[in-house]
């Protein structure tokens, strides 16, 4: 199957007061039609920057240092602002993290939806309101005719996010990018929003890129997962492979850090902090926080080692001559429990 988006060795830098920040340092991934690809990582790992580059909405001090983004036969890295008008909202849409700040506080939400509709030329002005109300019903907003004339502050957080999703879907895009859409919401609402996104994906045949730092959310949604750290993808594979056979120490750490109600083990936290991207460390960026670091991790960057056709991890531990290291015991227990629960 041909991927609809191919990102190849993308590198993005920011000009900061103190120097150049290398936010993305050689990221490659593919998005296939109809799948949900999750990009997981801590704050500062470069996930948001990557998708902003896809849409061309990098802030002014950011620029693409190298790499390609192939979509429909075009390289998006070479696109001008004008070229992006054909893409934004029409082919690729974005759902934001915080619906409160994403919606214009003094504009009626009906207008905010119809604005998107009219822009994408998918309906004419006369029918825009009807289509907007239809959309609002689709995303699950009750009494849409009345709420059409209301302002964002009159909605609860979950409802606001539904509106943002409605705006994103207004023009029937091919690809939907969700940037941590549930982080700002209560846990009980999170589940509903995730359900909504899954339903919409099926109905409209969307391809989704889902950004999050929460592995629990990922388990629910993703077909394939990319794990990002310090501007690089350190492991990628199908959801099953990542959850049941993680290979990179960082993935182990992320999985271990998920709170588990059943366990009696100590709550795990990854020690240390992400590195300063003004001067990225030599070798493997995770080495300083990695219990399983090898001496070579401080000197040379690991390449991607193939685990299966769909599963790759960039860690020297997979080198044939490297010492054999098992994942931490508590993690192994958890995975065993998960397998039992899911009957795998």
């Amino acid at each position, binding site marked *: 199957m041909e991927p609809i988006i191919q990102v190849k060795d993308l590198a993005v830098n920011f000009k900061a007061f103190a120097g150049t920040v290398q936010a993305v340092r050689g990221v490659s991934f593919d998005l296939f039609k109809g799948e949900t690809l999750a990009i997981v990582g801590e704050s500062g790992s470069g996930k948001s920057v990557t998708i902003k580059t896809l849409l061309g909405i990098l802030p002014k001090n950011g620029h693409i240092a190298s790499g390609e983004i192939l979509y429909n036969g075009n390289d998006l890295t070479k696109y001008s602002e004008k070229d992006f*008008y054909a893409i934004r909202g029409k082919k690729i849409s974005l759902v934001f993290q915080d619906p409160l*700040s994403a919606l*214009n506080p003094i504009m009626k939400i009906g207008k905010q939806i119809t604005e*998107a509709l009219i822009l994408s030329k998918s309906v004419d002005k006369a029918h825009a309101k009807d289509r907007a109300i239809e959309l609002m019903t689709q995303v699950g907003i009750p009494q849409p005719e009345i709420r059409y004339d209301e*302002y964002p*502050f009159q*909605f*609860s957080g979950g409802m606001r996010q539904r509106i943002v999703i409605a705006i994103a879907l207004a023009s029937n895009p091919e690809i939907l990018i969700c940037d941590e859409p549930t982080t700002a919401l209560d846990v009980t609402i999170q589940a509903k929003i995730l359900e909504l996104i899954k339903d919409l994906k099926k109905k409209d045949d969307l391809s989704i890129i889902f950004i999050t730092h929460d592995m629990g959310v990922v388990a629910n949604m993703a077909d394939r997962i990319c794990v990002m750290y310090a501007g690089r993808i350190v492991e990628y594979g199908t959801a099953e492979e990542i959850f049941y056979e993680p290979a990179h120490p960082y993935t182990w750490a992320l999985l271990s850090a998920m709170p588990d109600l059943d366990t009696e083990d100590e709550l795990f936290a990854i020690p240390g902090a992400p590195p300063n991207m003004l001067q990225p460390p030599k070798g493997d960026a995770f080495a300083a926080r990695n219990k399983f670091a090898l001496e070579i991790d401080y000197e040379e960057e690991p390449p991607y080692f193939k685990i299966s056709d769909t599963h790759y991890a960039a860690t020297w531990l997979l080198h044939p001559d490297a010492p054999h290291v098992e994942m931490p015991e508590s993690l192994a227990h958890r995975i065993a429990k998960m397998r039992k629960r899911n009957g795998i």
Partner: protein
Amino acid sequence: MKQYILQRLLAMVITLFIILTLGFLMIRMMPGSIFDDYQDLPADMEAVLNAKYNFDKPVIVQYFIYLKNILLHWDWGISLKMYPNKSVWSVVRGKIPVTLYVNIFSLLISLPLGMLAGISAAIKKNGSVDYLVSFLVVIFISVPSFVFATCLQYFIAYKAGLFPIIYDANAVGAAKFHSLVLPILALAFSPIARVARYLRAELAENINSEFMLLARTKGLTYTQATLRHGIRNSLVPLANIIIPMFTTIMGGSLVVENIFAIPGMGGLMIQSINTSDHQVTLATLMFYSLISVLTILIVDLSYGIIDPRIRIGGQQKV
């Protein structure tokens, strides 16, 4: 909502009332009588005059007489020194229009100019336009309006001869405006600067906000997003800034009227203070108080109307 308006109106009336009372009492309690200037006034003449103007009665009684005259007959008293025997109201009535003319025009031109400057500075933030605007803003806000008035009068009216040096009281229509251009301009510099500074800050902040980003991901061009979302949002709290500026303009106009020899309320107040014509002084003070209180009222009301969060807000969130 209606209750809110009524409340504010009531507060306004009470404030005016207090000012009137305080003003009256303070002036009456000042030492000396207004007849001190006339040194050779025979005692009985003085007594007759005192009786005529009720000066011989206790202050409280004088106050109530004064109040009654205003509320029932709109009689603000008689000018005793400046325009002997003319009613204060007739004197004041002639002076109000030109003062309002100058001040309102000042406010009106400061809006578009200030907005233009502020918006251009914010859009090309940290560019050369931005630095120029910021620099001019500091100067226009710091330098007092009467210094500007003097400079304009000297360089543009006197040296360059483009506008009349002082106001021509007999001019009408376009000629009238022409002779008032300089005072209007002098008073407008500070408001222009304030509007520009405010808009620049608000717009710059809004341009970087998330909803601007959303607008662009919807497919709006940078210009469309700035116009429809950025600028619109920045203008909303503008009323809060502009209307109180009117009071400042009024204050500045006191001196500017003096400089350009404009026969307005400002000159009247200065003269009445210098000649101790208290009835007139009190009337002019009430005029300025009325304007000030009205502007506060308008601001309070507009805030409630324009910002939907306040207008509708507080209702349950679903």
